[in-house]
């Protein structure tokens, strides 16, 4: 037996075997080890036993009562302990997102680019000039259609000479007769009810009476359409070329030509009957200015049919 085996057997507390006893008697180190171990055990086990105090159970009961009062063991509370912070966090997050959306939507119109005030020169032919309507039956994306309808209605009113529909200040009308190109201001797309006054003051007319069926409170909320895309009649297009016409059996008969106008330069003469513009036969319907530019005119002169190319003045 070696020292390690002896110590192991001794620490296990088993009775020493004969071999261990022989080793102990012969090995000085193991003899010392055994002696110290026995003394150490005796010293430790001779330590006084500490007793619990007499009021131990009282202290236990008070701790128990305290623990019962402070520790919620309800499963609902256990659930709420985790659910409440999560719910609070969710509410805060939701509020922040909601608030940011509200803020964004409130500021969006201000941040957006304001509709530009377009300046377009038109040459008025009559006292009344379709300055671009400011009201529409409905504000929608299909504003082009709405514009066409309304201009048509205004021009029809002109033809029927219904002063009850539009009343024009005489002084302002005289200004409009001036061949100097007039500025047509488009109003902000976000008119309210008071926007009518703005329109009237801008146009210099006493009152704008809108065609029946059009709600004056409903105003266009989209930017103004460019003039190039608006509809005009053939008469108006010819007027822009300096050619004044009268109706003649579905065609237009030239009644006058302004000096130094494109019509005069191109050789149009009084008495010519214009039957088509840019290949499009003249009708009462409005023509699309974007597609009809008045570059070529088909006319009848002395029972001859001529194609005249309009030249710039």
């Amino acid at each position, binding site marked *: 037996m070696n020292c390690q085996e002896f*110590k192991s057997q001794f*620490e*296990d507390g088993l009775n020493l075997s004969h071999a261990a006893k022989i080793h102990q008697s012969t090995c000085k180190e193991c003899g010392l080890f055994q*002696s*110290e*171990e026995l*003394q*150490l*055990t*005796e*010293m*430790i*086990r*001779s*330590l*006084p*036993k*500490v*007793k*619990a*105090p007499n009021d*131990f*159970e009282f*202290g*236990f009961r008070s*701790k*128990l009562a305290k*623990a019962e009062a402070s*520790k919620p063991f309800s499963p609902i509370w256990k659930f709420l302990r985790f659910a409440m912070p999560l719910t609070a966090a969710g509410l805060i997050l939701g509020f922040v997102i909601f608030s940011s959306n509200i803020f964004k939507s409130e500021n969006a119109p201000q941040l957006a680019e304001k509709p530009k005030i377009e300046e377009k020169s038109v040459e008025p032919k009559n006292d009344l000039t379709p300055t671009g309507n400011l009201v529409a039956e409905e504000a929608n994306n299909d504003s082009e259609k709405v514009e066409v309808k309304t201009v048509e209605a205004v021009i029809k009113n002109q033809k029927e000479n219904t002063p009850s529909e539009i009343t024009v200040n005489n002084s302002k009308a005289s200004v409009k007769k001036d061949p100097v190109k007039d500025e047509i201001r488009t109003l902000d797309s976000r008119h309210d009810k008071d926007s009518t006054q703005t329109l009237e003051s801008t146009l210099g007319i006493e009152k704008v009476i809108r065609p029946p069926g059009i709600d004056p409170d409903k105003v266009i909320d989209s930017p103004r359409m460019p003039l190039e895309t608006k509809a005009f009649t053939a008469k108006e297009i010819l007027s822009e070329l300096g050619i004044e016409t009268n109706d003649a059996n579905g065609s237009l008969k030239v009644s006058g030509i302004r000096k130094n106008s494109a019509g005069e330069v191109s050789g149009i003469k009084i008495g010519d009957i214009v039957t088509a513009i840019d290949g499009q036969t003249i009708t009462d319907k409005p023509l699309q200015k974007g597609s009809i530019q008045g570059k070529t005119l088909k006319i009848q002169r002395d029972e001859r049919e001529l194609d005249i190319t309009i030249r710039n003045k």
Partner: protein
Amino acid sequence: MALDKIRNSNTGGLHTAVSFEELSDHQLIEATKNGDEEAFGEIIKRFKTPLTNYLYRMLNDYEEAVDLAQESFVRVYFAIERYHSEYAFSTYIYRIATNLAISEIRKRKRRKLFSLTGLYQYDGDEDKEFQPEDEKPVPEDDLINEEKRQVIEKAIVSLPEKYRVPIVLREIEEKTYEEIADILELGLGTTKSRISRGRGLLREKMRDYFEK
């Protein structure tokens, strides 16, 4: 009543009075589960002194030892429904007390806390933390002198935690290796090794006091 059932079952259905002292730990626990508070009182009575002594030797602080012993019973009481009788009840409650003691030791290390009755000394060995003997326990030491007693107490408390716990359980509480292994949830070999190593450290500290 639950206790009546236990008494009846112990006495083969005879209605003879059976005192709490005659009931096993498990029977007392069962009675407590069924609402008998007095049964738990008997459990306290059985374990309060060994548990207090064990914790005192672990911490060398009597007030703290009593406090943690009471806390151990509180925890047993609240978890009594989850107690299973696969282990001895003493193993169960010693495990709880050991965990509380270890937590307290680590807390003291972290905070370098001075106890009301003790002091902290540092002489190069971080585990050499001790407090003077509390005067409350009444020593019955007629075998060794006061100096030896103080030295061995200090030596035990100065042991590293992983050696101190099995040494106290083995040498003071006189638990078997198997019980200690169960309490500490260690393997038997590890438990023996730690005890052997702890005893070796104690021998080194006490060498000057051994008789040649």
